[in-house]
């Protein structure tokens, strides 16, 4: 430190000038915003949940099960995702598909989101492209563990997000949620 810095007062004045500069600049922008200049922003705050920043299209969000044209799941219950899942949060019960050309379909397909680590391995492992994590939905929470278990019907009803990551489906409420 040189003498001026050791004296401290000069540095205090410099610091206060910096923060005061921020204050008056931001205050001017706030006032301009209040007076109708809507492009003037005095803060970098994004006022979640009213405002959201766009999510990346690569973001791994809530899973959805892809449907065939007749509405049945594209999933063939091959158990690949259940096997690869490091958190062991996928539970599949297989059954016969009515169409003899398709071997199987899931009777139950439950994901326990309380355990899921959002690694995306299930999406990569799927040979049928039947599970995707592109709904853009992140706000699922529950007061109970049961409320975090999402069933096949819930996951089938979901739609992919738009290009800037906005969810198109409402946040689903799983059948198991009681509270």
């Amino acid at each position, binding site marked *: 430190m040189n003498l001026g810095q050791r004296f401290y*007062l000069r540095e*205090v004045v410099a610091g206060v000038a910096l*923060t005061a500069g*921020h*204050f008056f600049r*931001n205050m001017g922008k706030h006032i301009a915003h209040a007076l109708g200049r809507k492009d003037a922003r*005095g*803060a970098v*705050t994004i006022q979640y949940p009213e405002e959201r920043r766009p999510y990346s299209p690569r973001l791994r969000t809530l899973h959805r099960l892809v449907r065939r044209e007749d509405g049945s799941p594209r999933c063939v219950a091959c158990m690949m995702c259940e096997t690869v899942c490091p958190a062991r949060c996928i539970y599949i019960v297989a059954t016969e598909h009515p169409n003899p050309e398709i071997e199987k379909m899931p009777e139950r397909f439950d994901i326990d989101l309380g355990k899921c680590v959002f690694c995306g391995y299930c999406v990569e492992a799927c040979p049928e492209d039947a599970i995707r994590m592109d709904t853009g939905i992140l706000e699922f929470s529950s007061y109970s563990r049961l409320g975090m278990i999402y069933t096949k019907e819930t996951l089938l009803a979901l739609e992919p997000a738009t290009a800037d990551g906005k969810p198109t489906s409402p946040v689903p409420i799983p059948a198991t949620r009681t509270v």
Partner: protein
Amino acid sequence: MIADLGIVFGRVLFVMMFMLNLGGILTWVERKQSAIMQDRIGANRASIRIPLIGVRLRILGLLHPLADAIKMLTKEDFMPARADRFLFSLAPFVSVFFALTAFASIPFGDTLRVGDRVIPLQAVTLNVGVLYVFAMLSLGVYGVMMAGWASANNFALLGGQRSAALMISAEIAIGASIMGVVMVYGSLDLQDIVRGQGHPLFPQIFGEWIPAWGIVTQPLAFLLFLTAGIAATKRIPFDMPEGESEIIGYFVEYSGMKFGMFAMADFLETVVIAGMTTALFLGGWQVPYLQPDGFHFPWGAVATLPQVLVALLQVGAFVVKVCVMIFVMMLVRWTLPRFRYDQAMRLGWLGLFPLSILNIVLTGIALLLAGGPA
């Protein structure tokens, strides 16, 4: 008789309301000002739903102090099993009481003439007003020490001890830096000191242009007083008694409104220090060139004003100056990092104290050369 009583009551009520409202609003000011300084928005979510219309009223987050108060009042009031029950409960009241009473002798205006009555615009007219304010400010630290002692907690005790040590090193510098002002204006009465600041400075040289405000006649004392005053409020950068962000301070065992009262006392002390700085260095209620009968501009123009308007202008000027001082103190609080304990001690004893003694000597020499107090 009744009218006299009413006038006294009114004066005290004005100061009380000024202090309490400002103290409450300061929690909002602190949040909002720091937010704007840091490119944020600040607390704005507390709201009241107006019935029937269903509109949520937020008014810039001004409801947050209210929400805080409700939260504090409904919290569990915990007391450690081995605490001194009486002192533990008394301590926050002592802190707030002395912070509130300290403002009493600071004048917020000149005199108001109603009929044949002359009302001094000051809660208490004291001819030792300066000493009174510092007596009250020093007594405030007893609440803090009491809290540290009565909590039956070693961390709280250490916090109280740090607070006492800081107080002593700050108070000495405050008292010594004030002496220069007292010498220049030749009085311990705050009203006299403020009146003295209405005179022009060196009329032979500058004419009537520069009023003899304390910041002009005593610039060094102003800096020393402001530094020591901020230390006396126990806020950052001198907040090692409480260290709200990580180290444990004297109110570690307090919860609910008792804790809120300690926080409140800090804000009230900020108002007191801002009021003192205004009265001693920024001309108190003085408006530049405003005499009791109107404006007398140095270029010869005269604008006569009714007496009530002059009094209103003076009170307004005082309030504005106090608010500006609070703004500056908040700026400092949100800019500087905390001093280490030994750094604060060194600053107090080896920086502020010798400099304020030097200021007294220089002021004495200057007064001798100029020939007596202003």
